[in-house]
């Protein structure tokens, strides 16, 4: 199977590769979207648990049929872990929503405007159903803010279908058997969902567009950053294939492998379909059979089956007529077609052992050949048939057998509509059947919200420029891209503007302090300094209270305690009373610490001497260039002295 590096744009064009993105980006707000809980960072701490089941509602399914009822009977127990400080009765679905957070709406409107979206005049909150339990209500409250936008990516325009404002879902902790556990800390944090048209023609383009969307949202300085703050779904299809959604991709870089292998998976499934049709199979007459064969394999030594039997489980065998060779047909660099069967068994029958099935062409674990023969006889197999074994508790194993048969039948139709989970290796796992189209309901708990022209005008007036306009403006000030991007990400763009224009601080210095040093303090020491105090710090700098070399340590001190005053911190680090005399300090230091004398290369010697002088109490108080002049003079004097002595 080809790797992404081995495929050209033409290869993808021949496949009919098409991809679109759904970018979810959390907004930096004080509260959650529909309640007054703080929108805090994640924490694994919890102090209570709830149990809920998600019941399919009639309207989604039209009506209940046997399959839906079966699915419900083998349903999941959903456990929610909640903590008093981050979750209230709203997120528990024990109270109706409060009014929508205006702060979040303003940010969403700003991003919609920056994406040139058409803004709606009145927001209507919609319930989008999710039966996987990721939201305790069973639906996500979401609302469209704008539609039909566009984004410039390099030289081309990518169209944005819509921008929605919605509440975030839970984090999955585990999913074992019939029990799925969710952490609720990020539940209901406001996020926007930007949906692009499926206009990307290569995996590399998907990455490029993903990065452009991220840059645009971050340029507002009002979105969350860090692990999990931005998550992407990508949908992929090839000619003759189906739109497949790959969910929750944590890193944009992963798009390349994921979309590439998904395209190839769809191609493989289409090849399998052609092969099966060629064998004379048709979806409406395909007749797989399955039976319980526990008694026949009772004495197997295969560990997972033995374990299931010990727990009073049963074994089912499924006969797939004329499927020989198909289960071993490669569908990705990691998997063959049997992985498709295994995914359904894991998700729908809740049998998540590894392996959770085996077949008679399995190169790996297998029951003894004579046992296969016995099973083959029991199911009246003929040459060319394939056999699959599944095992587990009786209800689950029976459901697993029928799911295996169903997925095999779907192979005759093509690529089934699914959502798939991203794996780190670029392959994907079956997650669930794509939900039906009618899963959007008006939310009767909240009234519509008018978006007035005044509100739009206010946001247009206060929002900053687009990334490309901002970039041009920074370049004019002499900044290069390596300084511009961190500054943009830092969210301190407005502060940068103030510092440069009001205080006349050199743009490069301001960019380094705001784009790099604040980030360094945050990452290295988890220290965060508010903008007002950083501005105060620059003010003191502009008044020559300290020199640029002191920014690093002063930021670190300020960040350690939000109550500290800027003046006090500077005074503590660099007391005015002990301000040294530069000339005397340089002379004394160079006389006392003499290792620089041994260095011959003039540049290195100067550097070492500078270090000695600065360490002697000049750092942060006397500008480096002044010290350098003094050190230079001292070194010249020393040279003259040495030459004199030499002579």
């Amino acid at each position: 199977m080809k790797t992404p590096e081995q495929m050209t744009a033409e290869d993808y064009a021949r496949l009919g590769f098409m991809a679109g993105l759904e970018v979810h980006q959390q907004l930096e707000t004080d509260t959650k979207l529909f309640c007054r809980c703080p929108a805090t960072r994640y924490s694994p701490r919890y102090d209570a648990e709830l149990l809920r089941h998600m019941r399919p509602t009639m309207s989604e399914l039209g009506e209940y049929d046997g399959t839906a009822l079966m699915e419900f009977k083998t349903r999941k127990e959903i456990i929610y872990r909640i903590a008093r400080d981050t979750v209230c009765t709203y997120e528990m679905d024990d109270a109706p929503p409060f009014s929508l957070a205006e702060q979040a709406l303003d940010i969403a409107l700003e991003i919609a405007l920056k994406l040139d979206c058409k803004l709606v005049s009145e927001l209507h909150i919609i319930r989008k159903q999710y039966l996987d339990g990721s939201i305790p209500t069973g639906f996500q409250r979401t609302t469209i803010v704008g539609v039909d936008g566009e984004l410039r990516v390099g030289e081309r325009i990518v169209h944005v279908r819509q921008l929605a404002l919605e509440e975030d879902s839970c984090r999955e902790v585990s999913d074992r058997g019939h029990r799925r556990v969710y952490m609720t800390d990020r539940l209901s944090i406001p996020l926007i969902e930007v949906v692009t048209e499926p206009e990307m023609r290569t995996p590399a383009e998907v990455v490029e567009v993903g990065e452009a969307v991220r840059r645009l949202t971050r340029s507002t300085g009002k979105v969350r950053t860090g692990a999990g703050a931005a998550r992407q779904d990508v949908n992929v299809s090839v000619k003759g294939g189906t739109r497949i959604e790959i969910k929750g991709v944590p890193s944009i870089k992963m798009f390349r492998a994921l979309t590439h292998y998904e395209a190839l998976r769809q191609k493989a499934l289409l090849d399998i379909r052609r092969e099966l049709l060629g064998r004379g199979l048709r979806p409406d007459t395909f007749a797989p059979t399955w039976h319980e064969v526990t008694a026949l394999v009772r004495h197997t030594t295969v560990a997972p089956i033995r374990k299931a039997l010990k727990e009073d489980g049963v074994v089912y065998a499924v006969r797939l007529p004329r499927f020989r060779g198909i289960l071993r047909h490669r569908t990705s660099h990691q998997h063959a077609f049997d992985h498709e069967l295994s995914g359904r068994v894991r998700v729908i029958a809740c049998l998540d052992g590894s392996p959770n099935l085996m077949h008679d062409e399995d190169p790996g674990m297998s029951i003894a050949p004579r046992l296969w023969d016995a099973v083959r006889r029991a199911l009246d197999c003929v040459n060319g048939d394939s056999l699959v074994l599944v095992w587990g508790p009786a209800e689950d194993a029976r459901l697993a057998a029928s799911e295996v048969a169903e997925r095999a039948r779907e192979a005759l139709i093509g690529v089934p509509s699914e959502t798939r989970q991203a794996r780190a290796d670029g392959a994907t796992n079956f997650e669930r059947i794509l939900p039906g189209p009618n899963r959007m309901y008006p939310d009767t708990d909240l009234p519509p919200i008018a978006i007035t022209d005044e509100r739009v005008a206010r946001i247009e007036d206060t929002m900053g420029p687009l990334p490309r306009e901002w970039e041009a403006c920074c370049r004019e000030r002499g900044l290069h891209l390596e300084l511009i991007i961190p500054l943009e990400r830092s969210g301190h763009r407005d502060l940068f503007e103030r510092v440069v224009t009001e205080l006349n601080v050199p743009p490069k210095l301001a960019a380094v302090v705001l784009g790099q040093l604040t980030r360094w303090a945050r990452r290295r020491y988890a220290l965060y300094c508010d903008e007002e105090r950083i501005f105060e710090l620059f003010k003191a700098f502009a008044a020559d209270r300290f020199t640029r070399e002191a920014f690093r340590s002063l930021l670190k001190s300020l960040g350690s305690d939000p109550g500290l005053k800027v003046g006090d911190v500077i005074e503590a680090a660099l007391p005015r009373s002990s301000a040294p005399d530069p000339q005397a300090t340089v002379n004394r230091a160079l006389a006392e610490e003499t290792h620089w004398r041994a260095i011959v290369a003039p540049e290195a010697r100067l550097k070492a001497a500078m270090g000695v002088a600065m360490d002697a109490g000049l750092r942060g108080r006397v500008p480096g260039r002044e010290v350098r002049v003094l050190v230079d003079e001292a070194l010249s004097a020393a040279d003259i002295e040495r030459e004199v002595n030499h002579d």
Partner: protein
Amino acid sequence: MTEPIPVFDERPDRYKGYRGAARALLERERVGVWSDVLARTSRGDFAGIILPRSETADDRHIVIKMVSGYNVGLAVANVISMVERGYTEAHYKVPEKEFPVDGGKPNVVLFGTGGTIASRLDYRTGAVIPAFSPGELYGSVPELADVCNLRTEKLYGVFSENMAREQYIGLAEAIGRAIREEGIDGIVVGHGTDTMHHTAAVLTFMVQNPPIPIVMVGSQRSSDRPSSDAALNLIHAAKTAGTSDIAEVLVCMFGPTSDEYGLLHRGTRVRKMHSSYRSTFRTIGDIPMATVDRDEIVPLRSDYNRRREDREVTIDAVFDDRVSIIYYYPGMKADVIDSLIDCGYKGIVIAGTGLGHVNKPLYPALKRAHDAGVHVYMTVQTLWGYVQMYVYDTGRDMMELGVVPAANMLPEVAYMKLCWALGHSHERDEVKRLMLTPISSEITRREPHDGYLIYQGGLPEVAEFVAGNLK
């Protein structure tokens, strides 16, 4: 959709919910509800199906559903033109399936009063379409067929706050008929939750000595949500009605907020205690009757009336609603009571402070009430505990004015009982006898220590309990 597009002027309700400027725009553009339109607006083009507008919403926006399933509102002032491209009308229908009959299962009657126990939401309008016939219920809660055979009868279609005298009497009589004339094994009453405890109390007085369980049930989260408590409550209630041996009026609602088990509360000791929690119903001043889950009913006490084979029941459906309830507050003026007397009220239930007190300035009014033949009963707004009017002089003074202490009857229960008692007699001693003779624990002789348990969140030992059990 290939159905023919109806002639515009013949479409019924084509401006449903639209008034003023919004309606004028629709009339001008000759489009209406269910029109699939392309709208040109000053904020760009929008396409979708025009939806009915909520009556309470303003007249300055038109709502459309876009292909994505999202609804958005277009400001009337921004719309330049609207062109109809098609027409897609919503059809309201709950899928029905015949409820299977199994001779081995108990027969249960479900009476509907108006709360929607099961319903389907129309995905476009958000309209809730109630499911009520056995077929509709089977379509939405198929597990019911594992529990019982079901007959349903819709008695009323009112919100629970609109339940009153007429409905109480009609419901009690319908229950009597079902017990006497049908060989049923249990009754379920579907009811909105807000006043479920009022109805449970009055049914206890109106339907005495029933041979079978009478189980009231509702839901705190509507059944159109995947997380609804409705289906589980209904299953628990049907199971209780069909199989439990507690032949009393019960309220069956969630125990914890988790989908775990339900509690069966005696109709006279139960109260809705939270405006939105699932586990809102609590037994006050006593412990509940039993727990119920899909598998079993576990009684928590043994002092209840057992199920009987006979078909005998006393239906005593009388109700005089010239009764009011007064929630005392400091500084209350006598004119509040005076006005009730002047309006012809025959009974007053006071929810007094502490052990059952009101301030002195009310005394003349209380005396006047007594002299006018108004029956005045005292309960406590603390909900837990007994009225005790001997402890302080003020209490003794009040009793001399004719105020009767109602022991530990809950204020709403005392209200329902006084209405019922006045339906029998206005003779002072007879009313008093009826009021103070408990029919089913509305007054209890003693309060067990664990009849009052309100744990204070945040304490270490409570945190430990909460962490160790599902909420």
